[in-house]
């Protein structure tokens, strides 16, 4: 069952972490690199806003998925690395929170300060690097789902239809469960 926090951020159930943990990281690394390349191609101003923050690595740590994404602005582009465990000395800062909160920050659905105020988001380390990344991403106006679809080429349309069907089903189930809970109270 999904849990709601004070900011109405959905948290993935524990089984997701259990399923993801034994999977190899290489396919995810390749997929995310491709996703990032597409984003940077369509939003070159993102890296421009990070000038002055070169080589300051920021770790994105979803609290409900056992995967860490390390981003590093370097030589006018962005380097991405996927890790399971973080060596604290290799990154300047960490941003931690539920996966949906982190995705919502990229998509512009959530406000980073508000998530921080509500304790849904935790930031540590080089706060300058964190703010620069947050502001650059927010300005870019990235549509993460659309970018992910773009990486699928000819398979984008059927995948999009399938994803929308699952999303509608999920929303209906979730709404139904909430109504049942409210009716029982």
């Amino acid at each position, binding site marked *: 069952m999904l849990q709601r926090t*004070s*900011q109405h951020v959905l948290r993935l159930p524990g089984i997701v972490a259990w399923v993801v943990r034994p999977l190899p990281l290489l396919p995810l690394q390749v997929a995310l690199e491709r996703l990032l390349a597409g984003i940077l191609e369509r939003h070159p101003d993102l890296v421009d*806003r*990070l000038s*002055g*923050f070169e080589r300051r690595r920021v770790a994105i740590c979803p609290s409900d998925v056992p995967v860490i994404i390390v981003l590093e602005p370097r030589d006018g582009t962005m380097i991405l690395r996927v890790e399971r465990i973080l060596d604290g000395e290799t990154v300047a800062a960490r941003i931690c929170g539920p996966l949906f909160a982190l995705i*919502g*920050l990229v998509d*512009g*659905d*959530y*406000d*980073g*300060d*508000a998530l*921080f*105020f*509500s*304790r849904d988001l*935790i*930031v*540590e*380390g080089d*706060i*300058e*690097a*964190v*703010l*620069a*990344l*947050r*502001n*650059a991403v*927010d*300005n*870019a*106006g990235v549509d993460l789902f659309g970018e992910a679809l773009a990486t699928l080429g000819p398979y984008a349309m059927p995948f999009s239809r399938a994803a929308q069907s699952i999303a509608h089903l999920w929303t209906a189930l979730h709404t139904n469960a909430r109504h049942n809970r409210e009716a029982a109270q």
Partner: protein
Amino acid sequence: MTAIDAQSLELVCPAGTPAALRTAIDAGADAVYCGFRDETNARNFPGLNFSRDEMRASIDYAHARGAKVLIAINTFARAGDPGPWRHAIDDASALAADAVILADIGLLSYAARTHPGLRLHLSVQAAAASSAAITYYEKAFGVKRVVLPRVLSLAEIALVTRSISCETETFAFGGLCVMTEGRCSLSSYATGKSPNINGVCSPASHVSYRADSGSLVSRLGDFTINRFTPDQPVGYPTLCKGRFKTTVGEGYLFEEPVSLDARPLLPGLKKAGVRAIKIEGRQRSRAYIKAVVSAFRESLDALNGGRPDPIDSLALMTEGQTVTAGAYKKAWR
């Protein structure tokens, strides 16, 4: 967007990035205030603000939709080096900004002499709170609007507004500066960087957070300024909203982490003759801008239409997740 008539309160909204500016205008802002990507404005934060090209494109976007762009050049010029500030004023004029928001007397003088057609607004950073002070700025520099400091009550705002010729603008939402604005040296004392000259209050380069047994400890420079237990909402790492140990006890000495929400006072502000209301938060995201500007657009449209205000809580968007009427109701001081 709603057309502004002489009786309407103008909705002035923040934008730290071009995307935030477009979001604000699409959500119903009458005017947007923003700054260049340097120390000439009081939100000189990493990754924020506008290049000259971005400002030009943003002004075009705003003007095409009937909205105004006010460029904040509201820090005080560094002693002996007014060049960057004068350059910013020149560029704002060349880019056809609808107004510049200034605080420094020297810059006001420069703008008035060099660009007589450029509309001047007096920044809250000038801390002009009396009719005598504001009248001076009007007469000396031709200031057309003053942003009133957040230390006046509603009754005081009405008195000041009636006794001056220029327009008044008051803050209606967002973070509160509880010190005399433009004069506060707390952040400068702790970090060596001044909000009034460098444009950064509690600069990110000097902020750190540490987890400690479930609590969150925030530090600014060499000072631990707060400790939040796991069930407490967090605030910004500013000294004025930190907790202090004193001889009379321990706690918030100046102000708790809390934000202004003056929506219930909008009828009073309009009746007082205020021309514009301002939302704080150039450091905030598109999500904040969209939520807050939309809510205020709805409130102002309801006010103009004689309908009850459909006030929805914006507390989750605010520092400390708590809102206050600030000094407007006088209980604050």
